[in-house]
């Protein structure tokens, strides 16, 4: 292959931010496919359009997903990327790696594909970017042998994802890394064999900061919280005060419920326990002095997704507080999620995310039928309209007037 010019892309090697163009060029040294990718991309930059076609169904034996089929639109011009599929490899919890594992990933990818990756895909997978159809099964075989498995694609449970959690964060209210690992293993069938109306995602965040963006990006969002009261270390408060940290203006004045008060004289903080919404703001600002309560667990929210079809939805609370215990093998969570999926599977239309199904059929119906207790925490506020679907079984169905005559 003769070296072709990429003047437009070259512009994107300038500047301080690391350049993906440089990366493609590095891969192009070893991979003819990557070299052609560079060419087709330069053309996209000239023409301001993409050059990829819809994927046909490509995959591996025994699974229904994990690979995104992709074909260039001019296979004659670009024979090396005529097929240029991506393989989704399920990442380890919290994106933790040792270099040995990483090198294995690289070596296998050098053997089979373009040498280009996304670390990581937006859902969380290790994305192996670009390979031929014939390589897919061997790729899977080799990675499998090295201890990896494929991630999700299609109408299945997608690759789960979690924040760094107890691995490195003092805020984690449950073990996000273990939850993600354990629960993913529980739902292998759901992950690898699409069977639902559409995709379903789970993201695990250890606290209300939601560092996985679960509430916006997952159908089932598991956000760590506590049931009791924040704990305040008054000595540490005094230290913050001594360091002239603006406790009143930055912490108390911005507490959304005004339940946290600072006594300038005693240099102590006080909280009105029942007014605290556990928003995590004060803890974020004074991690040395304030910590979560002792009774830890997670809030389970359901329905998050992006734009298509009914516009973007955020997840909303279905279970305000659930224990997320390694000891119990996360049983309560697993049971609940099974009921939720079952309901969606029975009621959802094709390509309808669970949030949309709930919206279409009613939150009340969903909660009732999925056997989830109904509590005011599930809504910001009650209904404004009086259009209640009264449970007819609770009513007098005699069909008579007060004097007993038929209506």
């Amino acid at each position, binding site marked *: 292959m003769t070296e072709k010019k990429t003047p437009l892309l070259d512009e994107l090697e300038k500047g301080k931010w690391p350049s993906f163009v440089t990366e493609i060029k590095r891969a192009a040294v070893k991979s003819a496919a990557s070299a052609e990718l560079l060419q087709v991309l330069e053309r996209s930059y000239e023409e301001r359009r993409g050059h990829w076609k819809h994927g046909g169904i490509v995959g591996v034996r025994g699974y229904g997903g994990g690979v995104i089929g992709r074909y260039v639109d001019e296979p004659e011009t670009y024979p090396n990327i005529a097929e240029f599929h991506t393989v989704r490899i399920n990442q380890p919890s919290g994106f933790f790696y040792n270099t040995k594992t990483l090198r294995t990933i690289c070596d296998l990818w050098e053997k089979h594909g373009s040498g280009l990756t996304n670390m990581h895909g937006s859902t969380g997978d290790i994305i192996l970017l670009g390979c031929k159809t014939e390589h897919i099964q061997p790729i899977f075989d080799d990675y499998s042998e090295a201890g990896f498995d494929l991630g999700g694609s299609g109408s299945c449970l997608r690759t789960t994802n979690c924040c760094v959690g107890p691995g*490195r964060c003092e805020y984690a209210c449950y073990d996000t890394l273990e939850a993600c690992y354990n629960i993913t293993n529980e739902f292998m069938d759901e992950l690898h064999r699409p069977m639902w109306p559409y995709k379903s995602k789970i993201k695990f965040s250890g606290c209300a900061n939601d560092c996985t963006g679960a509430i916006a990006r997952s159908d089932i969002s598991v956000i760590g919280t506590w049931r009791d009261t924040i704990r305040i270390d008054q000595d540490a408060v005094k230290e913050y005060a001594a360091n002239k940290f603006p406790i009143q203006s930055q912490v108390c004045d911005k507490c959304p419920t005004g339940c946290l008060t600072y006594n300038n004289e005693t240099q102590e903080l006080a909280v009105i326990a029942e007014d605290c919404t556990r928003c995590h703001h004060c803890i974020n600002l004074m991690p040395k002095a304030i910590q979560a309560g002792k009774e830890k667990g997670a809030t389970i929210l359901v329905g998050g997704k992006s734009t*298509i079809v009914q516009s973007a939805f955020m997840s909303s609370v279905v279970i305000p507080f659930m224990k997320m215990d390694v000891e119990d093998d996360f049983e309560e969570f697993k049971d609940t999620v099974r009921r939720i999926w079952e309901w969606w599977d029975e009621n959802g239309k094709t390509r309808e995310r669970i949030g949309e199904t709930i919206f279409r059929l009613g939150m009340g119906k969903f909660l009732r039928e999925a056997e989830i207790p109904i509590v005011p925490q599930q809504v910001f506020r009650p209904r404004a309209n009086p259009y209640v679907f009264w449970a007819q079984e609770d009513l007098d169905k005699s069909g008579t007037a007060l004097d007993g005559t038929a209506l």
Partner: protein
Amino acid sequence: MAAKLDQGPPNYKEMLPPIILDNYGKWKYHEIPRSGVLKHVSESGAALFSVRVATPRLVSIDFIRDVCALADEFCDGFLRWTTRNNIEFLLSDEAKVNPLIETLVAKGFAVGGTGAAISNIIHTQGWVHCHTPATDASGVVKAVMDDLYEYFESMKLPAKLKMGLACCLNMCGSTHCSDIGIVGVHRTPPRIDHDKIRKGTEIPSLVASCPTGAIRPDPKNKSVVVNEEKCMYCGNCYTMSPAMEIYDARNDGIAILIGGKVSNARSAPSFSRMVIPFLPNNAPRWPEVTEAIRAILELWIANADKGERLGEWVERIGWERFFALSGLPFSDMLIDDYIFARETFRTGAAFKY
């Protein structure tokens, strides 16, 4: 050898450095000694240092190998990626932190992204690999981050700034709840290839895919028709069928949405809102986009309270005030007309000018 089915991801425990295994779940507090460095202190007193380094996300295996070499040298071979595509080198030895950073800087790595900074932009495939993009992903991110680099390597913003980019309305980049969202938009209706439809499209699914009901079956023609009045160019029909080609270089481009967030701190999570409906796809460096984003950013820096996320600031001053301050034109394109539009209408007589 045949693959093992359903073995699941590798066990994260094998990936944890000894200091984490020892202090798992026992972290007490953290500090940010300098931009790009997190110091987490355990109940045991042990301290873990994480050095955060930008990546272009789309990386070659050689890049990963380079990074591995550094991790071996400074971190006993342990590192992680963040949920925002940065690398974090994990050091248990404080003495190695500065040497690592010096090495990184010397090699041209970008250290930063912690605290009140712009971190990496969550983004997507764009022209590199997807079939529906209205713009490129990696290129726009590169242009924007080059421009805003100073805010990555410092911590001088009013608060964290989280950006997302999606190359089409599928919004794989999760731009719908970002402080600043960059979204590729098509603006002309799909072009129907009736032959292709006849060959392999499931017409009912295609019809159902349209959010506004713009697609009707055309049984006589064994195809479909698009009511162009109703089409808002989302491209969802193209996702369903390659017969509905929608790219259009002269009209595709970028919309800017701002003010979303997902954390629960202080205020509830919120959607990003469109403030610039369209900017042209001026590849390779999208100057209109980088300028527009910088202008919004600088307005926020100049006006927000300390600790106030972009959306929190705009909500406090009011969106009408934001438009006045920013000088951005307001038009009917920015007024919602989809199914939840009603809740965005100003049902009140109190507002600013």
